[in-house]
């Protein structure tokens, strides 16, 4: 039994079977990596968790509640946050404002007409947002426009935005893609630290094996739309099926 349970999920795009009978359990408090070659269906699977795609058949449940057929904002309210492959941030706003928005958002998503309150006076929210930026080592950049950040910083900012919501499950889609080695290592440290401090469950899609084996406590290998193995990192390393999936043949 996991916090996130995926059962017999199928998804086709026209004639292409992107996901075939996928089963997955993400245990509470763990970092669970989903790896696989390009086109294995990793991002499609993640899209099925956040309401971006609807599986053809199968179930996705989070804390016993089905995530299918409900809208993205309701999924987030249930406790699932996502960091995207290309950072989804508010580019025209400052870094601090970016983080303040999730801080303002009520956990239950309720609408509040706070048109006559002043951002300037919201010291609690501001402090919380500043603290999130300290956590992702971006405190000194809080006045910069999000647009002008480096790619690595944009992703760190997006993580801060997700963490500001105290999610139960954090989905990360290639959090280190396109990052320099130093940035990648910083991200590994950051995620490890978050895991230690807050015990947030994470599901990570990643190509970089260095990242995967540094962080993951559990790994699922996806190939051609189906989970071929799920095991601990040590066992995955020596698994013949995994070698085959990645290298296209047995040795």
């Amino acid at each position, binding site marked *: 039994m996991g916090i996130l349970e995926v059962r017999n999920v199928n998804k086709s795009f026209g004639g292409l079977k992107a996901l075939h009978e996928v089963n997955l359990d993400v245990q509470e408090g763990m970092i669970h990596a989903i790896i696989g070659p390009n086109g294995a269906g990793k991002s499609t699977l993640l899209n099925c968790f*956040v309401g971006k795609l609807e599986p053809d058949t199968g179930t996705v449940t989070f804390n016993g509640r089905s995530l299918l057929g409900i*809208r*993205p*904002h*309701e999924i*987030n*309210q249930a406790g699932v*946050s*996502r960091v995207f492959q290309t950072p*989804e*941030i*508010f*580019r*025209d*706003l400052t870094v601090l*404002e970016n983080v*303040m*928005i*999730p801080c*303002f*958002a009520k*956990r239950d*998503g309720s*609408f*509040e*007409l*706070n*048109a*006559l*309150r*002043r*951002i*300037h006076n*919201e010291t609690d*929210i501001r402090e919380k947002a500043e603290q999130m930026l300290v956590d992702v080592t971006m405190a000194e950049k809080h006045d910069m426009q999000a647009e002008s950040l480096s790619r690595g910083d944009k992703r760190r900012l997006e993580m801060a*935005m997700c963490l500001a*919501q105290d999610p139960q499950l954090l989905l990360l889609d290639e959090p280190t893609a396109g990052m320099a080695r130093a940035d990648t290592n910083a991200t590994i440290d950051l995620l490890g630290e978050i895991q230690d401090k807050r015990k947030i469950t994470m599901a990570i899609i990643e190509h970089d094996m260095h990242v995967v084996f540094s962080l993951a406590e559990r790994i699922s290998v996806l190939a051609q739309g189906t989970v071929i193995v799920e095991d601990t990192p040590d066992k995955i390393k020596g698994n013949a099926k995994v070698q085959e999936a990645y290298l296209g043949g047995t040795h």
Partner: protein
Amino acid sequence: MYGLNRKDTVLLLIVAILVAAAPLLLNPFPDTSAMGKTFNAGYPDLMQRFVIFGIFAIGFNILFGLTGYLSFGHAAFLGVGSYAGMWMLKLLSINVIPAILFSIAVAGAVSLIIGWISLRRSGIYFSILTLAFAQMAFSLAASVLTPITGGETGLQTSLNDPRIMPGFLGGGTVNSAGNIPAPSLLGMEMSESFILNVGPWAFTFNWGYYICATFMLLAFYIAIRIFRSPFGLMLKAIKSNQQRLNYTGLNTRPYMLTCFVISGMYAGLAGGLMAAMDPQVGAERMQWTASGEVVLMTILGGAGTLIGPVLGAGLIKYFENIFSKINKATLEAWFGVFPDWMTDLLVTLVYPFIGKGWHLTLGLIFMLVVIFLPGGLVEGGQRIARLFRRGKTGAGALKPAE
């Protein structure tokens, strides 16, 4: 001050001073001079229009500037506000306050319905939906709803209106002279003016203008508060990345709808003031060209900025009046100093841009602004300020070398 930071307070004060001094500032030339006859804009009718369209544009900017949703049907709310205000002036009282309040309320209710439907779509589809609704409102007002709107003749105060309120509250069918009473507040009619003569200059301080100006400052103040509120931040976030907002657990619809209604109420206020200043309304007030005009004003001044829409509204209304007033004779008088053939040539060249051709001038200005100053006049102002500042620091840097 009053919940504004220092910079916003200064901005509000500057606007307040300019608006209060407008009758002086807009009449820079002696009344009888040729320049004065053409370029002076300090007469009540035009000044009222400056601030009324300023309110309209401020409200439009709350929607378009903050959320990026381009409504092409805002004139519908302006028209609805005008009709609602007129009915108050006819049925209840000639006092302008109940008329204006009712205008705001009715425009708010109508924008709630139109917004509720239109906001199911975004981008160009939203624009088209609002345009369709506005054209529908225009057609209804001109035909089916004739009992309410007066159809093509429009609606005006008449000698048969009940005006049920007691006399001291502005009721009464006729005034003491037996004529149709004119809209008033505190016992003074909207058209009442105090004229100050200074040498050849004549400055007109109009009661109606100052009432409109007060409403505009109030509207401007509320707009600043909205821009600086968490609600305003959410609206900016909608413009920036609506998807991320959804993945942050927020349903954007209530925010959009509230914003749309607030914007509609601003338009209603503008419409109500129009009815109060000049108690007659026709359906043409709702036509799509009127909706387009407020888009032009906002973009020309600078969408998403606080002061931009007011500047844009002022500029367009100024050009509309001044340029359309210039005629062939005026041009001939101006260019009369040149030899005849040159006068003829200049007049022929300039003539298409004046009088009825003022839209051509407006179009050219609009194109220049959009191409060279995408941030509108406000961006132009900022660039000049930056240039000025750089010049100053440059001079300062030279000093030690002396």
